[in-house]
């Protein structure tokens, strides 16, 4: 089995759940200069556009999805005054309340950590080939757009 580099572990598309503590620790361990950490955790909600959702499935374009998340991390490190960025997204069947997506930004100070975190999740939604099917009482729906 190939040993993942630490940098590879900072950008992942995976089926299994992730431990927020473990991922937070992964970012903290990157530098003792980190003084502020901002995090966005996206979870599966039971309502969407006024209808009930019983569960969901995410599909991704293998290869391109990873490539785009790597680009997002690289650009965040270039464009914001931050020290480290972690970007994870799950695929496959996900139950209500489960984790979907995690962004963690480590910076010296909070302002850039917050800004970079928001930028990363917004950019992820724009450029990453990931699709969501929601299971609802009215049938299965591919989600077309997100606020």
């Amino acid at each position, binding site marked *: 089995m190939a040993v993942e580099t630490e940098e590879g572990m900072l950008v992942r598309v995976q089926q299994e759940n992730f431990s927020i503590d473990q991922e937070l620790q992964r970012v903290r361990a990157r530098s003792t200069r980190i003084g502020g950490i901002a995090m966005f955790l*996206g*979870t*599966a*909600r039971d309502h969407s556009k006024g209808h009930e959702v019983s569960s969901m499935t*995410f*599909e*991704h*374009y293998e*290869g*391109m*999805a990873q*490539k785009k998340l790597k680009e997002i991390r690289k650009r965040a490190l270039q464009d914001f005054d931050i020290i480290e960025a972690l970007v994870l*997204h799950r695929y496959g069947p996900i139950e209500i309340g489960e984790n*979907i*997506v995690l962004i963690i930004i480590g910076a010296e100070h909070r302002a850039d950590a917050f800004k970079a975190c928001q930028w990363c*999740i917004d950019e*992820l*939604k*724009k*450029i*990453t*080939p*990931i*699709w*969501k*099917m929601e299971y609802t009482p009215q049938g299965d729906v*591919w*989600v*077309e*757009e*997100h606020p």
Partner: protein
Amino acid sequence: MLKTLVSGVSMLEMPLAEGAQVKDLVDSLHIQYPDLGELLLQKKVVVSVNQEIAHWETALVESDEIALLPPFAGGA
């Protein structure tokens, strides 16, 4: 998710002339699968070539990895 528009298949083979561009592929798809063609023309479905979003003028060669991508919905 586009499978319903292309008779349930997940992979297509399209003959294209030498020097073809993405717009030629879209034209061919439009003839064979009008509903899909409309979505492509409206940019509701975009074309990627070798895992990068392509433009109408992007040139295609035989070994290119081409994908048709519906609107993204990652995140939560």
